[in-house]
């Protein structure tokens, strides 16, 4: 069905289609729309999930963990401070190998309070064993949330998945949304280590120095295996519903001399910049990274690369820029832009590309030393 929906609504619609058994979530701007919409579905019986109105995000994730451990499909959503507050439990969910799906509406971190888009919240979770995907349109937020359940719950993966959408920019933007009848696209969840009251097992007990690392390795092994699962799931989605997704969303990259790499809505806005540059005769392209974990192979050889980070690791640099440097053995031009909802237009992005200086970092709007 073609409707007009916000990113938040799209996520809620996808959750309705995926039918989790338990949903536990806590409101926070700008994610609230997801929680409210789900509460509405549940209260109208449109969605037969149990919705647990927990008292915090730490508890939201803990409740998802408890439910998921029984083999039930689970979902939660959060943002910013909420994500930070559940940090202990996001680590736990991954370590416990539970395929929780979470929507995170990217927002900056206080203080000062700031409710607008920034990726640092999710970026700070990049080591935890969660798969992370960043979306750029309402349709993509919907489609990706559906796929997230398939991927998280796949027997080769069994790791939680975080679907990211930019606060307000995507969570509140209203765009055309084509919903699907998902049919058997998401297979029923069969958690191999689901709690069986008849089978006495202690989950996650004290694990000694000569055993612990093996389970850590298994997380990484599954991360690596998830690359295939993601590929297959995206292919199957395309087959069934006609929309194609990759690890990245590449726009006019094939013959590009310069490529701008970014996450989320910046990557869509960048396409407009690319069109403008192309019309000036500049061969530029945009590569929007969808999957940050597992970190994808990026085809950047031979191009000058501008990376826009809507995040920062203080005392180090833009995270995406440095991960690309490290993985691709290249130097890049690193631009820090859009923190705390700082407005970044396609003109600005065109400027970043035109004025790129490989090997340097610049903060959009900041003159250093001042």
């Amino acid at each position, binding site marked *: 069905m073609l409707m007009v929906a916000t990113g938040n609504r799209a996520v809620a619609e996808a959750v309705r289609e995926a039918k989790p*058994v*338990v949903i*536990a979530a806590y409101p926070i701007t700008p994610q609230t729309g997801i929680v409210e919409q789900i509460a509405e579905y549940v209260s109208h019986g449109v969605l037969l*999930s*149990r919705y*647990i*109105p*927990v*008292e*915090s995000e*730490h*508890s*939201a994730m*803990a*409740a*998802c*963990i*408890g*439910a*998921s*451990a*029984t*083999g*039930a499909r*689970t979902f939660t959503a959060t943002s910013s401070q909420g994500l930070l507050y559940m940090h*202990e*439990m996001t680590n*736990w969910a991954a370590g416990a190998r539970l395929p929780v799906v979470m929507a995170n509406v990217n927002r900056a971190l206080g203080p000062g309070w700031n409710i607008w888009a920034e990726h640092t919240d999710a970026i700070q979770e990049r080591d935890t064993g969660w798969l992370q995907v960043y979306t750029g349109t309402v349709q993509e937020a919907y489609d990706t949330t559906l796929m997230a359940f398939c991927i998280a719950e796949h027997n080769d993966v069994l790791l939680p998945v975080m679907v990211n959408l930019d606060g307000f920019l995507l969570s509140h933007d209203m765009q055309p949304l084509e919903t699907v009848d998902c049919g058997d696209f998401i297979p029923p969840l069969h958690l191999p280590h689901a*709690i*069986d*009251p*008849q*089978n*006495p*097992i*202690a*989950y*996650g*007990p*004290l*694990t*000694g120095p000569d*055993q612990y690392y093996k389970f850590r390795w298994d997380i990484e092994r599954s991360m690596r295996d998830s690359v295939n699962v993601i590929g297959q799931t995206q292919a199957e989605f395309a087959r069934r519903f006609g929309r194609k997704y990759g690890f990245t969303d590449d726009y006019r990259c094939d013959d590009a001399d310069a490529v701008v790499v970014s996450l989320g809505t910046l990557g869509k806005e960048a396409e407009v910049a690319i069109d403008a540059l192309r019309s000036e005769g500049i061969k530029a392209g945009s590569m929007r990274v969808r999957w940050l974990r597992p970190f994808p192979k990026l085809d950047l050889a031979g191009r000058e690369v501008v990376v826009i980070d809507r995040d920062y690791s203080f005392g180090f640099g833009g995270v995406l820029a440095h991960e690309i440097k490290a993985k691709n053995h290249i130097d890049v031009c690193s631009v820090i832009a859009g923190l705390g909802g700082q407005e970044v237009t396609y003109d600005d992005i065109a400027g970043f590309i035109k004025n790129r200086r490989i090997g340097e970092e610049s903060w959009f709007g900041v003159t250093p030393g001042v």
Partner: protein
Amino acid sequence: MLKGTSACAGCSSSLSLRYVLKGAGPDTVLVIPASCSSVIQGIYPNTALNIPVYNIAFAAAAACASGMSNAFRAVGKKTNVIVYAGDGGTLDIGIQSMSGAFERGTDFLYICYDNEEYGNTGMQRSGSTPLGARTTTTPAGKTDEKKDIDAIITAHDPPYLATACSAYPQDLFKKVKKALAIRGPAFIHILVPCPSGWRFPPEKTIEIGRLAVKSGMWILYEREYGRLAISSPSKAAMKNPIPLENYLAPQGRFAGISPKALDILKQRITQKIQRLTEEEKGIC
């Protein structure tokens, strides 16, 4: 519970756990936050518990159990979901998730075994440590009073709340059975004297528990749908409590307790006995 746990010799938390498991029966999952119990259960790949045990982060037990209970109920399973948490995991870091789970009317049993300290990390002060008790973080005796978690839970008006003590295992056993028969959130608060932390010889574990009850420092009761019933061991004790000193003296942690602290402890006992006596009368 199987033999050969890593609990200290004379640990009454293990003793309690034995009776909790007995009372709960087979269709039960235990949720255990960080605590002595996370160690007592055994180290991978072995466990001493013969029902499923879900280990969870320190602050998260009740929320985890919430999710679990809802997931079981959603598919029509009646599996008992029991949290077995220490006082730290209940009164301190765990109180947020516990309070939330009670407010939401979660169908589960929350058991707090109370050794009045952070046992697992080596006997630090908790919110449950009584006034005057020495711990490694209150080397001169605690200056704050024990948090009254029973009153806090009572404020959540659960269908069932009881206190128990490891020295009265049969009483505990019956309370666990009763709690599990009731729908909605139930709470059992067990006093478990800890020889290692309270500094008394391990053979005195039961004796100390009995003295706690006899002195009125610990009162056994249950509150079912708001109706209070004093349990029999405390009935007698409340009428004629033994001197508090008899309970404190054998415990190294109370050595050198100030007369002022002692006095307050005694006052509190008198007040509590009075309050519970009145409550019992008032409603029957």
